[in-house]
């Protein structure tokens, strides 16, 4: 598998599905990159767990206000029409189903929508943050991820082997090779890289890829 999308391209593809005015939470780390690739004319409203709606880009170096950070503890700025609120209200937005989209990273996603993205096992210091809350409540819970682990194992699997973040919660997965919906506890293939055969894609996927209609080409710009 020589050709695959870069992280930026995966984030770009995920960004194309975010509608204007959608309320969106981007998980810390890789998912934060999605904000950069909103199509022209569309403006999502970004939520961060620590109590800010409608924040913007990072400030310039040296311009940071450390009272104004996101869930990843990175300095942010505000857009007009922002709001501050406390943590219980912030998670009322999450748990109460008020977010349109949450986009998260993953260690493993199972065909039934189970997600493992918070713990790689009992070693070290465990830390969960808001991940277990975010997988509940958003109208769409999407994952962006490389299709395989660094050592070549599938990240899309029949059953998760790592500690779960949530049960049956993921609805769409954007990978470095494909876009896959989770429907009726099955991976339904929607898009794949144009040069990639279904057989080759299946070979690096840990559970059956179901085809229920046309498979579109997954085309991303060079970024």
């Amino acid at each position, binding site marked *: 598998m020589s050709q695959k999308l870069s992280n930026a391209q995966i984030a770009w593809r995920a960004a194309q599905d975010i509608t204007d005015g959608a309320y969106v939470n981007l998980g810390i780390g890789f998912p934060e990159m999605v904000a950069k690739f909103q199509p022209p004319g569309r403006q999502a409203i970004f939520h961060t767990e620590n109590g800010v709606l409608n924040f913007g880009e990072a400030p310039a170096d040296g311009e940071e206000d450390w009272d104004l950070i996101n869930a990843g503890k990175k300095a942010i700025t505000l857009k007009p029409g922002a709001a501050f609120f406390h943590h219980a209200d912030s998670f009322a937005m999450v*748990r109460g189903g*008020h977010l349109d989209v949450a986009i998260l990273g993953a260690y493993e996603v199972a065909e039934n929508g189970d997600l493992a993205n918070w713990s790689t096992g009992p070693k070290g210091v465990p830390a969960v943050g808001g991940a277990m809350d975010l997988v509940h409540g958003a109208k769409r819970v999407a994952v962006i991820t490389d299709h395989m682990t660094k050592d070549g194992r599938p990240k899309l699997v029949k059953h998760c082997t790592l500690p779960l973040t949530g049960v049956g919660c993921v609805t769409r997965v954007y990978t470095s090779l494909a876009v896959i919906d989770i429907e009726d506890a099955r991976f339904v293939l929607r898009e794949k890289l144009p040069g990639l055969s279904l057989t080759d894609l299946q070979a690096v996927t840990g559970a059956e890829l179901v085809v229920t209609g046309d498979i579109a080409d997954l085309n991303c710009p060079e970024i």
Partner: protein
Amino acid sequence: MDKTVADLATAVADIESGIALMVGGFGGSGAPIELIHALIDRFKATGTPGNLTVINNNAGNGRVGIAAMIDAGMVARMICSFPRSADPRAFTEKYLAGEIELELVPQGTLAERIRAGGAGIPAFYTPTSYGTNLADGKPTAEFDGHVYVQERWLKADVALIKAELADPLGNLTYRKAARNFSPLMAAAATTTIVQASRIVELGGIDPEHVVTPGIFVDRIVEVADARQEEALMREGVAYA
């Protein structure tokens, strides 16, 4: 993204019969009179929406607002804590005639059930009403030697809310004690419709002073000259 709509009729145009409708306000304080009256206008013109379950602390006063909805025959059921008022005729007559149902909920439990609805908490335990008639049939559980009553979240299809300021994203402030149930209802309803005394531009509300963040708001209409239920009642206005 601009949640502003042109007028009151547009704001309430798609409210269906048979839904659960939260209405902000405590007595006349915070009552969205103009939105309610627009809904009554629509009912009179089209017969819709009727058969409503209305959720409010009270059950109307005089012949305006919720009382006028009841008079008009739009309300099948009230969920409230205190269906009495200075002039409670509208509800009282229908209730005593068996023409309107009542679910009576202690005020704090009503607030917390609505808050839970907005916050994705399907049930919680409260000391309130334990050992009383209002806990009949509800599960109880003991925690740390005290017994509590289990209460369920309360959601609605639509909330009608009165705000002081709104920006186009639906960030809201309220005026004085008119805040009461409105921030909770805004979060607990699928569609939240707001009448604001003034719509300001984006950035016109300090992010520190936003009481209801826009994520809980779907539709805003400006009603600059909003009337107070209490004043209308004292003037003897009958809307229905």
